[in-house]
C-alpha cells in the first residue's frame, strides 16, 4: 500500500513556481529521502503533504485519502523552521503538543521518549534553558507523540552534533521497524545513502531522481574510477577517456567518458606513477547530486566570464 500519492501537483508563490507538476509515490513503511538544493521545492512539497499549504493543482492522497485543510494524528510534521514555546516546561510542552495531535495517553508516551532520547532529567526544566541539541530532541518528540503512521521530517539532522544525530537516526529506524513511514529531507548525502530506502530528488520544482539508491546508481552506470596514486592529482592530467577529475585530497575520482576503457586508463597510470589503489565504482549520491544541481557547463562559462 502507498502511504503518500502525489499526482501532478503544482504550487506557485506569486511568479515563482516552487513545485511543477510533481508526481510521486511513497511506499508504506519506507524511509523516503528528499534531496535537492536550497529552494528546489522540498519544503513546499512536505508542507503540502502535511496539509500546511494547499497545492494549486493536482491531488495528494495520504493512506488513500485525499485531504484538504484537515489535520490528522496519523501525520507527525517537523518543519525546517521549527521552534517551541520556550517559556514552557519540557513535559508540559510535550503533553500540549501530544494532546493537540489527538493523543490520549500522552504522559506515558512522553515519559518513554524523554527516557529514550536521554532527556528524562530535563522534563521539568523550561525549554529556554536547554541546549540547541536538546531543544531539537524535544521538537522531535513533539512530532512523534502520539506515534504517527507518517512522519515528515524537514532537515531533522541540521545543527545536531554526531551523538544527537545518532539518537534521532536510531529513533527514526525504530519507528520504521514499527511500521511508520518516514519522509525526511536532508543535505547530507551520507544520511540519505545510509538511512533511506528510497531517494527522491527535486530540482527547480521538478522531479529529477526517484528510486532506490542502487537503482539510481545503476542508471548512471559504473562510470567512476576511484584512485589513489603517488604524486596525487598532477599525475592524472591528460588520461585517455577521462572527462573530469575531482581531487578529494587523499583520493581522486575520475569520471569516464562513454566508451572509455578503464583498463587503458590503468595501463597509462602504471607508466606514470605507483598506484596505491584503483577501483571502478558507481557514482556516489553526492556526485550524482552535483552533476544534476551543479552549474551546467554553459552556466559555469557565464559565471567565469562574469568574474
Amino acid at each position, binding site marked *: 500500500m502507498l502511504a503518500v500519492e502525489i499526482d501532478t501537483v503544482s504550487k506557485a508563490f506569486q511568479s515563482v513556481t516552487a513545485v511543477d507538476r510533481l508526481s510521486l509515490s511513497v511506499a508504506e513503511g519506507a524511509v523516503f529521502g528528499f534531496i535537492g538544493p536550497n529552494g528546489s521545492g522540498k519544503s513546499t512539497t512536505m508542507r503540502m503533504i*502535511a496539509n*500546511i*499549504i*494547499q497545492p*494549486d493543482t493536482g491531488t495528494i492522497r495520504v493512506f488513500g485519502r485525499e485531504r484538504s*485543510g*484537515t*489535520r*490528522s*494524528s496519523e*501525520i*507527525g*510534521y*517537523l*518543519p525546517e*523552521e*521549527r*521552534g*517551541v*514555546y*520556550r*517559556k*514552557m516546561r519540557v513535559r508540559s510542552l510535550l503533553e*500540549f*503538543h501530544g*494532546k*493537540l*495531535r*489527538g493523543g490520549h495517553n500522552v504522559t506515558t508516551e512522553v515519559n518513554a521518549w524523554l527516557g529514550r532520547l536521554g532527556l528524562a532529567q530535563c522534563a521539568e526544566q523550561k525549554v529556554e534553558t536547554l541546549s540547541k541539541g536538546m531543544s531539537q530532541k524535544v*521538537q522531535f518528540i*513533539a*512530532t512523534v507523540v502520539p506515534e504517527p503512521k507518517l512522519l*515528515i521530517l524537514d532537515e531533522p539532522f541540521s545543527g545536531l552534533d554526531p551523538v544527537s544525530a545518532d539518537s534521532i537516526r536510531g529513533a527514526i529506524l525504530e519507528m520504521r521497524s514499527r511500521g511508520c513511514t518516514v519522509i525526511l529531507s536532508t543535505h547530507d548525502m551520507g544520511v540519505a545513502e545510509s538511512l533511506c530506502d528510497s531517494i527522491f530528488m527535486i530540482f527547480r520544482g521538478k522531479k529529477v531522481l526517484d528510486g532506490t539508491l542502487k537503482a539510481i546508481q545503476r542508471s548512471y552506470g559504473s562510470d567512476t574510477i576511484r584512485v589513489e596514486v603517488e604524486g596525487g592529482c598532477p599525475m592524472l592530467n591528460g588520461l585517455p577517456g577521462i572527462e573530469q577529475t575531482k581531487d578529494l585530497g587523499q583520493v581522486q575520482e575520475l569520471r569516464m567518458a562513454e566508451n572509455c576503457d578503464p583498463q587503458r586508463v590503468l595501463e597509462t597510470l602504471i607508466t606514470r606513477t605507483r598506484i596505491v589503489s584503483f577501483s571502478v565504482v558507481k557514482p556516489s549520491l553526492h556526485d550524482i547530486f552535483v552533476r544534476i544541481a551543479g552549474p551546467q557547463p554553459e552556466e559555469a562559462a557565464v559565471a567565469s566570464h562574469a568574474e
Partner: protein
Amino acid sequence: MHPMPNRVLLIAKRDYLQIIHSKAYLVGLILLPLLIGGGFLIVGQGSKGAAKEQRVAIIDHTGVVYSAVVQAFQESARRAMADTSFGPRVLPRFVFEEVKPEAEATSQLLALSDRVRQGELFLVLEIPSQALRPTDDPKQEPVRYYSNSTGMDQAVFLLPDAVNAGLRSVRLAQLGVDERRIPDALRDVTLVSMNLVTKDPATGTIAQGEKRNIVQAGAVPFFLVYLLIMVVLFGSAPQLGAVAEDKMQRVFEMLLGSASSFELMLGKVLAALGASLTSSTLYIIAGLAALAGMAMFGLAPLNVLPWFFVYLIADVAMLSAVGVALGSACGSPQDAQHLAFVLFIPTIIPLFLMTAVMQQPNGVLAATMSFIPPFTPVLMLMRQALPNGVPWWQPWVGLAGVIIWAIAVVWAAARIFRVGILSQGKVPKFSELAQWVARAG
C-alpha cells in the same frame, strides 16, 4: 484526532494560562485601577498640596468696595466648602491685600504683575470706579484680574460671583437699602436635578422621578466605560506582540502540523477573552464590594452590567483577532509596536466623543455614532449607563451590528493570519494585507 473545538480549547487554555501567569498581566491587573482611580487621587492630593495660601491684591478705584468684595469672596468660599455634591473640597486660604491706586497705573500694574511672577501674589483684581454704576455700554471699563492661573483654580471660579455680590452690596447700601432687612429677597435658591417621571407599563402607575445623583449621572457611567476601554486594550493589545514573538521563535509551523491556522487564531482570541473576562470580573466584584462598603450599592448600574460583558466580549474578540492577524504579519515585536495604533483607533475615537455623548446621550450625534459597530461597545454602553438610558431597541440593534462586524473582522483576520504566519521578510503594507484577505484557497 481531537475534533476542532477541543483543539481550539487546548490552544486557548495554554495561551490563557500563559497570559494570566505573565508579569505583564499581573502588573496590569494592579496598574489598571491605579490608572483609573489614581488620576483622581493625584488631582485631589495635588489640590491639597496647593491648598496653602493664595494672596489676592485688590486695586479698588471706587475706594469703597474692597471690604464688601473680600467679605463676599469669603462667603462664596465658605459655601463652596459646604457643597459636597462633587465630594469633599479643599480650598486654599485666601489672603487679601488692598492696594491704593497710584497715578502711574501702568507702572503699578507692572510691579504687581512682577509679584505674581515671583509667586508672592496669586492674583491682582482691578475694580474700576465705574463698577458701581454699570451700564450696557460695551465700552465701559470692565473689572479686570491679572494672574498666571490656568483658569482652573478655585479662586478664579469664585471670583465673578464674589465681585458681583460685593458690588451689589455696596450699591444697595448707597441706595439706602439695608441688606440685612431684605435677606430673603437676595437669598439664592437651591436647584435639584431630577430623573424623568416614568409610567409602569404593567400597572399604569406613574412614578415620580427620583433625585438625580451627580455620581450616578456622570461618574458611574464614566468609570464603567473607562473600565471597558482599559480592559479591552489590556486584553487585546498584547496579542499583537505575543504573536510576533511566537512567529520570530518559529513556533507556528510546528503547531500547524496539528491544528489549522483558523483554530490557532480562534484559540488565541478565546485566551484573550478569558484573560479580559477574568480581570473585568475581578474589577466589577471589587467595585460592587466598594460601593456596598460605602453604603452606596444603589448606585451600582446592575441593569447595564450584562451589557458591559456582552460588549467586552465583542470588543475583545474584534481587537484581539486584529492583533493576532497583524502580529502574524510582523517580523519582530518591534514591527508589532509600530502597528499597535490600529488597535487603539476603535477605542480612542469614542473617547473623544464621550463629552458630547454625556451632554446629549440621545442626540443625533451620540445615537448615530453608537450604531457604528467599532464604536458601539463604548458609546452605547455609555448611553445605557446614563440615568435615563436609551430606547430599548437601540442596544439590540447595536449589538446585532457589532456581532456581524465582529464575525467579519475575525474572518478577515483569520485570512491574514493564515498567510502571515508563514510569510517572511518585511512587514506588508495595508494594501497587501487586503490582498491576503481576498486571496482564495
